[in-house]
């Protein structure tokens, strides 16, 4: 059993999506609990990917292949997670703020967060503050993530946070920000709860917010 977990996490680290899906299916066939497979194999593998990326031993294209493998495993696992009433560790609402069409960074954070066991609601790019507010009301996320790539659009983050406050939703969510021109000092200035300097840092931050780190 633990050997199967090890093989699943290795397949994820190696970025082998087909193999990951097959091994997860084998776990289901052996009647292992979906939650166990997720926590003891998949999240472990993706966690190691994050560690290696930070250490400079893995590069972005490889991390993406691992994230794709995680996805492939989750596809197999999802119906079983739902059937057994298992909740993921949290829900994150993600969007690139108004005026900004650059969303690669946000997509990477999504993948890493998904890999860490979050449910992601992605509301896309060039998202105005009203749309953030509607989505918070509709999806009730634990965490709201915003990205901006330009010095000209990063100000829209401050406006969005202000709008969330004015809508009376600020206390319901933790807000994290990221993107090329953003830093920790800026995040603090605009009233965000935290800043992630890259995709794994973003997922670490989200885990901290929901008490999973």
């Amino acid at each position, binding site marked *: 059993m633990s050997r199967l977990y090890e093989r699943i996490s290795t397949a994820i680290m190696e970025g082998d999506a087909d193999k990951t899906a097959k091994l997860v299916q084998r776990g289901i066939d052996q009647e292992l609990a979906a939650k166990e497979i997720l926590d003891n194999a998949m999240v472990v593998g993706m966690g190691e990917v994050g560690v290696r990326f930070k250490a400079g031993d893995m590069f972005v*294209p490889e991390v993406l292949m691992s994230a794709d493998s995680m996805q492939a495993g989750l596809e197999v696992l999802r119906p079983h997670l739902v059937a057994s009433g298992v909740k993921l560790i949290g829900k994150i609402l993600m969007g690139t703020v108004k005026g900004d069409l650059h969303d690669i960074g946000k997509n990477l954070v999504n993948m890493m967060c998904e890999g860490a066991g979050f449910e992601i609601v992605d509301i896309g790019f060039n998202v105005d503050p009203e749309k953030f507010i509607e989505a918070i009301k509709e999806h009730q996320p634990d965490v709201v993530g915003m990205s901006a790539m330009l010095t000209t659009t990063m100000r829209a983050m401050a406006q969005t946070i202000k709008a969330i406050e004015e809508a009376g939703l600020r206390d319901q969510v933790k807000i994290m920000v990221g993107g090329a021109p953003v830093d920790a000092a800026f995040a603090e200035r605009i009233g965000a709860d935290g800043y992630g300097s890259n995709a794994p840092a973003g997922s670490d931050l989200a885990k901290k917010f929901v008490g999973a780190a």
Partner: protein
Amino acid sequence: MRTNYVINSGVRFQLLSQDQLQEMFDGVLHVLEYTGLDVYHDEAREILKEAGAWVDGLRVRLPSYMVKDALAKAPRSFTIWARDGNPKHNIHISPGRAHFGPGPTCPNFIDIETMERRLYVKSDVPAVAKMCDALPNIDFVESLGTVNDVHHELGALYEFAGMFPNTSKPIVAWSYDRFDSAGIHEIAVAEAGGQEAFELRPNYVHYCEPLSPLVSTFEALDKLIFAARHRVPLIFTPCPISGGTAPITSAGIVIQGAAESWMGLTLAQIIQPGLPYFMGGVFSAMDMSSMILAYGAPELPLNMAALTELAHFAGLPLWQTGGCTDSKCFDEQAIIEGSMSVLFSALTGGDLCHDVGYTESGMTGSVFQLCAMDEAIGYARRITRGIEVNEDTLAVPVIHNVGPNGHYLREEHTRRYYKNEFWYPKLCDRRNYEEWDMMGKTSFKERTAARVRDILATHQPSPIKPETEKAIEKALAEAEERVKDH
């Protein structure tokens, strides 16, 4: 099928035109034919005279056909072999291949713990050899120092004995005299499996240094004769200083220095036709206020580029110079001077570029400078590798598939190329501010020092054969016996 299609593999660099090179080539032959050199070695003069040289007392002049004959005999392409057969440590000398390594004989050394300057001692030798063995862009090995704490005549032998077990990259062996050379050769031959095996796969290069202007010293030629008779690939490297021991003009110093090299070449090719032979060496400026030989001056890489082109024009490989500095410490000057000459040397394709890790104008060896220059060489090699243009690298279908506002991170094309298209630094920091802050706000100097200490604590070079260990013991014991009354 493409017609009349020219491919540039790598960056094109050319300092001198064919006309200029021909003029310089003729200038060298003229100096050898009409001025000649003083040759302080009786047997060498005899050999040269017998082969057609004009000898008058010490002065030896060479008719140009003798020099051309020697140039025709010397190979342009050959291999220096790793002692352990590791193909990654072999050095293939041929057009367009630049290799790098340290230099010999600095009296001082930057201490690895304190980073302070002190005398170079025996225990520094294995450390330098290990560093060279581990650093990916260092191809050959010298010791960066003269051993000060053994008998004053045995420094070179102890140096080789300390380097050989600690690296399998080819060593360029310097020596005081033919006794050293013989001891060094016994060690190398023991590892190769006999003289015949050594001749097929030579595992070190011998280094001799004549005197400028226009003197072939006894020691330089005595060692040359030993190396030629034992078929040891040879470096003959003058060190003229423009304005002091050579004409102040770049064209002038190159001609004089080449004449000094080709006297050695002619002698070596008479003794051992076909001997691999590198002309050298260090052609730089005398600083007219401090009187030092400037290792960080722009005239050094410029002169060396001219010399490289002349060597290649004549069909010889070159002993290049770069990665060195006049700075006394690990600072911005050291990095600017070292990096500039490294890039310039790489562009010329000069065959073995030495003195990487020299500081204080050659007075002090530094493995920190060596390690920093390993990074600069990696950078330079990425540039000289150039740009590959073919259907796959043009990526037109990939651009089409990704389209507007997509991204390339997930493309199979990206995965296939990202490791080779990009150079990844080992010491230069590209992290964002927060991560850099979190990792201790390190400077380039601190990261370099950490890498040096990490390599020395962990790197394991491949071992030498047991019979070679015995040969080392024997060579050292015999040498100690020989000098015990000196």
